[in-house]
């Protein structure tokens, strides 16, 4: 019985899930109707939980791509800038077209934006895999330069678009469910299928755990790196278009600002190590939900804006501390304390990276 208890506590998703439940409980105490989901006049789901799922969608989409990049022992700092570039590209195409409300126009705009992001993602992949630049530096280039590119596209302006099909991407509903949430769910499912139902996920992990050993075993790291950075950039562009559509304007300075940090945080909260290797998409989902619930909690509970950052930091510190191997090792010691005779004979369980 006790063993099961410790097994549950020791699971890498235990503490993030506890935090999620605690945050939701705090909200319910403050706003009794927090969990209620109603159907509004237009037949769409309406409620705080729906807001969390919708507003958290861009972070989740980026975090999925980031998970794979981090699994290869890399990191992609340029996703925020890619959001801005994709949004700027889509908006400027829609604005220059004669008919912004044409579905075809919007489709072209979105596809061009995605293609541009993919090219930039492959550029990241080339810097990392072919030139061997450290990922944090390689993607820092595009992180800095990317906002400049977005500014060039928007000519320094905030581009406002009045386009019904474009607006649908960020704030629309499909069968009552927010479209952004549907996109995030599809992305998560597709990436999970692609990496877990094939050997791809294992190959990515092997590159992250030991690039040299993987190479000698015949894994082509170069192609895999191109793939993950390209995919990460593509997903960043998807998120960028959702963000831009949600605010009906391309803002080169602010779209996706600091979202790379939220995405990395979501991945880390989900138990994927920044040292690469084993990754968990379910963990990333939980991480992204924790982050968005945290943001919503700040607004709902009415934490003063000045204290917001401290509150967020406290929650993150709490989760990471509880999750850390050191804490688990301490729990382990506590667990074996009542049976001092046995501990001496049993080799201590290795605390592997979690």
């Amino acid at each position, binding site marked *: 019985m006790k063993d099961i208890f410790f097994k549950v506590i020791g699971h890498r998703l235990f503490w993030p899930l506890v935090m999620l439940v605690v945050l939701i409980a705090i909200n319910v105490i*403050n706003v009794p109707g927090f969990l209620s989901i109603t159907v509004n006049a237009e037949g769409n789901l309406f*409620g*705080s939980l729906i807001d969390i799922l919708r507003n958290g969608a861009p972070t989740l989409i980026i975090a999925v791509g980031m998970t794979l990049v981090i699994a290869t022992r890399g990191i992609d700092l340029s996703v925020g800038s890619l959001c801005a570039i994709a949004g700027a590209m889509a908006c400027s195409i829609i604005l220059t077209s004669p008919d912004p409300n044409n579905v075809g126009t919007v489709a072209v705009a979105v596809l061009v934006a995605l293609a541009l992001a993919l090219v930039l993602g492959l550029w990241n992949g080339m810097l990392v895999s072919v030139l061997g630049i450290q990922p944090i530096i390689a993607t820092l280039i595009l992180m800095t330069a990317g906002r400049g590119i977005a500014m060039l596209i928007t000519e*320094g*302006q905030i581009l406002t678009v009045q386009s019904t099909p474009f607006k649908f991407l960020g704030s629309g509903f499909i069968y009552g469910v927010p479209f952004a949430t549907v996109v995030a769910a599809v992305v998560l499912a597709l990436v999970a299928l692609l990496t877990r139902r094939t050997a791809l996920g294992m190959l990515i992990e092997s590159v992250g755990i030991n690039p040299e050993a993987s190479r000698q075993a015949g894994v082509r790291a170069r192609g895999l790196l191109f793939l993950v950075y390209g995919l990460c950039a593509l997903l960043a562009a998807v998120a960028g278009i959702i*963000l831009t559509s949600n605010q009906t*304007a391309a803002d080169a*300075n602010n779209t996706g600002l600091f979202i790379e940090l939220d995405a990395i945080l979501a991945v880390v909260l989900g138990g994927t190590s920044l040292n690469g290797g084993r990754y968990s998409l379910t963990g990333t989902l939980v991480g992204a939900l924790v982050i968005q619930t945290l943001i919503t909690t700040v*607004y709902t509970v009415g934490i003063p*804006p000045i204290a917001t950052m401290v509150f967020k930091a406290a929650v993150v510190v709490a989760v990471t501390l509880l999750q850390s191997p050191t804490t688990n090792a301490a729990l382990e010691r506590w667990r074996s304390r009542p049976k001092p005779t046995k501990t001496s004979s049993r080799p201590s369980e290795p605390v592997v990276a979690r």
Partner: protein
Amino acid sequence: MKKTVGLFAAAALVMALSACSGGATPAASGGAGGAANKPLDKIVVGFAQVGAESGWRTANTKDIQDSFKEAGIQLKFSDAQQKQENQISAIRSYIQQGVDYIAFSPVVQTGWDAVLNEAKAAKIPVILTDRAVDSKDTSLYATFLGSDFVLEGKKAGEWVANEYKSASAPVNIVQLEGTTGSAPAIDRAKGFADAIASNSNLKVVASQTGDFTRAGGKQVMEAFLKSQPKIDLVFAQNDDMGLGAIEAITAAGKVPGKDIKIVTVDAVHDGMQALADGKINFIVECSPLLGKQLIDIVKKLNAGEAVEKRIVTDETTFTQDQAKTALPTRKY
């Protein structure tokens, strides 16, 4: 729009405005330059702009360039791309070229003493536009021309107080603040709070930062709509957050401008459009059109006249009807 003002101002909470608050004392530096009383077409003014970071700033640049062209005064223009070092080197080059006046919108509040002293030594009067510097030595510049954020908040608050002057029940107000710690956010909140303090029915029940962005305003408003049982009015500290709030209110099945009234600051084009459409109820202008007043200052200094140390931009307010009239001829 004023976001970058805020971002940079946040770095230096020591308000530069306090240094200029003794606005009544006339500047002694008027006509200090050796170039006094030149014919207008011989005057050269160097202007070091912040950059082109927002629609507001672009309108500001265009207005200044147009005004100088119209007045027939030669303008040397540089864009610092939001970097202080670019701006300092632009000002140095103006000093070397021996322009008659230098005008600039400081990227940040601090670190200007050295270059301003160089200008002073060269007897070139400096005019600050839109943003202040926190130099203790106010003789380093002739005047500061820009908006009074406290006044903007106050105007918004006064409209609210007037709108609900006969209200007997409590009026629940939610506030969407600008970037935490920025000068416009602090000052607009202060002016607004002061103006509604007289009526005890007016209560700010919730206040959160929306970072001066549409997405921020929308997300905060969505949460407010669920956590606050009754909201009568939104005070958004800029148009963008107000526009975000409109979307959140619409999604919640309420009518913005009717079920929940909205008051904002800025009067950029999209905001004015929403005002004319009846989705916003009142906008306090924060005008980027400084060109005409800047020309006046240059002319006065040229004639050897004294100018005030602090000049507030000519700004107005807009109701829905005024917005409909003003919209077709609006420059930004």
